[in-house]
């Protein structure tokens, strides 16, 4: 933590960056995103188990970008998000300083995107373990059971779009649900509208989800919608042998193809 604070301070002091995006402790003891612009306030930065939010979502937020060049406290999911955002032309790699945090909570020396790539390659890129267990549980059910299981979740949805807003990859300025010519997704938060919304969201993240689980965590009514995108992340790797967010030059799996892509259902 001291290393992190010192590094943040140094970056702000020598003008390398204008803002450091990290975590601070809120009054209720929760960690929350912090935007440090004053080196004297770098001491507020923390990094511990409470710091779970994927901060990469702020890299595309207009008012944060307006602050100037950014440094960002980056765990693996953040780093993978950054890779995706660079690949998709949303941020410029040389415009951000990555304050990498290892799984042991140590400050990493991520000099550039190349180093970050090397680091990511060495990491376990699978879905988090507890999610793997839930996925396995669901995959063991019959389709009808899975339908019932998901419908119970969908009934809870209030279409607040916290799942979308919390996701670093959902940076579109106009989401499909906001298109009304035609009205692709029913506006209503009813079982139909909610089911189609979650299908849409998961499909749009196919090959792009970096398994941070932020969508599920953000859901105020507790829908584990991250399992949808994580299942697809698994399948993307299964079919196309790709993990999202492993390079700054990724082509989405749904934007490319191999003539011999395997499937067994097209007759």
């Amino acid at each position, binding site marked *: 933590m001291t290393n992190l604070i010192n590094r943040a301070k140094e970056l702000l002091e020598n003008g390398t960056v204008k803002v450091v995006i990290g975590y601070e402790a809120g009054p209720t003891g929760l960690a929350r995103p912090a935007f440090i612009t004053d080196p004297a306030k770098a001491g507020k930065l923390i990094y511990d188990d409470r710091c779970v939010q994927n901060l990469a979502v702020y890299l595309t937020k207009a008012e944060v970008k307006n602050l100037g060049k950014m440094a960002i406290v980056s765990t693996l999911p953040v780093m993978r998000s950054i890779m995706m955002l660079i690949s998709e032309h949303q941020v410029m790699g040389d415009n951000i300083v990555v304050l990498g945090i290892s799984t042991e909570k140590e400050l990493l020396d991520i000099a550039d995107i190349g180093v970050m790539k090397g680091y990511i390659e060495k990491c376990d890129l699978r879905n988090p373990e507890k999610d793997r267990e839930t996925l396995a549980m669901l995959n063991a059910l019959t389709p009808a059971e899975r339908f019932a299981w998901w419908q119970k979740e969908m009934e809870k949805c209030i279409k607040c779009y916290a799942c979308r807003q919390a996701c670093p990859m959902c940076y579109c300025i106009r989401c499909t649900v906001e298109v009304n010519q035609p009205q692709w997704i029913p506006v209503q938060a009813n079982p139909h509208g909610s089911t189609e919304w979650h299908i849409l969201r998961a499909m749009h993240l196919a090959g792009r989800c970096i398994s941070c689980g932020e969508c599920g965590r953000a859901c105020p009514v507790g829908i584990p919608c991250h399992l949808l995108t994580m299942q697809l992340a698994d399948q993307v790797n299964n079919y196309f042998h790709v993990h999202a967010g492993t390079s700054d030059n990724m082509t989405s799996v749904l934007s490319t193809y191999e*003539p011999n892509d395997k499937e067994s259902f097209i007759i």
Partner: protein
Amino acid sequence: MSDFEPKVVAFVCNWCTYAGADLTGTSRIKYASNVKIIRFPCTGRIDFMLLLKAFANGADGIIVSGCHPNDCHYTSGNFHAKRRWIMFKELMDFMGIDMNRITFSWVSAAEGARWADVVNSTVTRIRELGPYVSYKELVNKSVEEEVKND
């Protein structure tokens, strides 16, 4: 169940399957009239959301068909579509939405008879599966909110 006439929508590309279905006609091969075709320039154009919209509007089954791999009029549209369907199918399976109701096929412009087979086998299958109750319920549950308090 015997008087159940399934509604089946076919999403096909202009260059292969649509032309193949034309050939079925030219060859006067008969098939079930439950299937109605919507023409697209290419399977690559077919948005996965349209499949859901078909179910939401009451389709009991869907056929998606285009050019065989390597035969795409636009070289690669069907390959992109293939990947899209792989992901879509995995997601639908995971959500428990019945993929037996969708036939994905490649039917070329020369395969008039095959088109009839694809249609007939799909209609037979959907007939056995019966009306797509669970999706209709999903939609209806949402339609009939009216005065209920929840």
